[in-house]
């Protein structure tokens, strides 16, 4: 997936002048909130986390070198905070994706519902895979970018994303099959 810089909300990276803090919050609030939301699946907690991330950015504002640096910093800090929150509050679901129950069979497999289903399935992935999937498909980041940001090997990123996709695909296919059987 190729999301352009403008779609990602990244101001012109050639600009050396950092935009005002209020503009940065306005531009990147959806990015920060969505990473937290897709990771935690808790609206209030995600909002709180996003606020904390921006407040930390405000404290470190003088150290920001460029708009691109700001985006990098925000993504990294948000990811770290998400992992911290999950570990601290034990929010991670105990059941793995394979063990998670199928949604009710009466649910229609229409696009909005499929999206909601996929979101739930992503939220049930293990922490690491969940984070990688969110960064890859929400933020449209390349595996190499993700690897650089999280200080891990890019082949690990690719493997983990591939495993997560396999699980999600299998689960969704199973669901569609069940749905068709119920309708027949």
């Amino acid at each position, binding site marked *: *997936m190729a999301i352009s810089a403008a779609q990602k909300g990244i101001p012109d990276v050639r600009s050396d002048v950092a935009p005002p803090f209020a503009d940065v*919050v306005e531009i990147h609030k959806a990015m920060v909130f969505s990473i937290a939301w897709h990771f935690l699946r808790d609206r209030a907690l995600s909002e709180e986390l996003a*606020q904390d991330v921006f407040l930390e950015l405000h404290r470190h504002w003088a150290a920001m070198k460029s708009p691109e640096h700001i985006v990098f910093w925000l993504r990294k800090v948000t990811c770290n905070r998400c992992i911290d929150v999950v570990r601290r509050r034990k929010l991670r679901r105990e059941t793995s994706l394979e063990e998670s129950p199928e949604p009710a069979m009466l649910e229609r497999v229409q696009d909005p519902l499929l999206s909601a289903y996929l979101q739930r399935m992503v939220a049930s992935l293990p922490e690491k895979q969940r984070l990688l999937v969110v960064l890859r498909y*929400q933020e449209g980041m390349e595996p190499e970018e993700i690897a650089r940001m999280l200080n891990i090997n890019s082949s690990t990123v690719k493997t983990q994303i591939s495993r997560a996709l396999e699980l*999600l695909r299998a689960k*969704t296919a199973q669901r569609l099959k069940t749905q068709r059987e119920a309708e027949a």
Partner: protein
Amino acid sequence: MTEFEQQLAQALERREPPAGFTSRVLAAASQQPTRSRWQAWRWAFVLRAAPVMAALLVVAGGALYQNYERIERGEAAKQQLLLAVKIAGAKLYDARQRVVSIGEIRGAGTEEEQ
């Protein structure tokens, strides 16, 4: 990108935070102190200098310890030398005493013969 990945990307599209988010962040931000450029630079300097300082401390500590060990070895050698001198002095004294006593005995014998 496969169709499934496109569906996934669509499912994970960004969403806006609740209304008033920006104003809440700005209000909270206005109440907290920011790090000045000087403070940020100072922190960066401290963080970068810390490993160098630690290495210097280790090197200096090593050098001091080596010096201490050298002095200790010197002191021990000095004590041994003093002991050796003392023993040698005592032996010399004994020998001298014997020589003197032998001389006195021989002197007394010669006088008696005369």
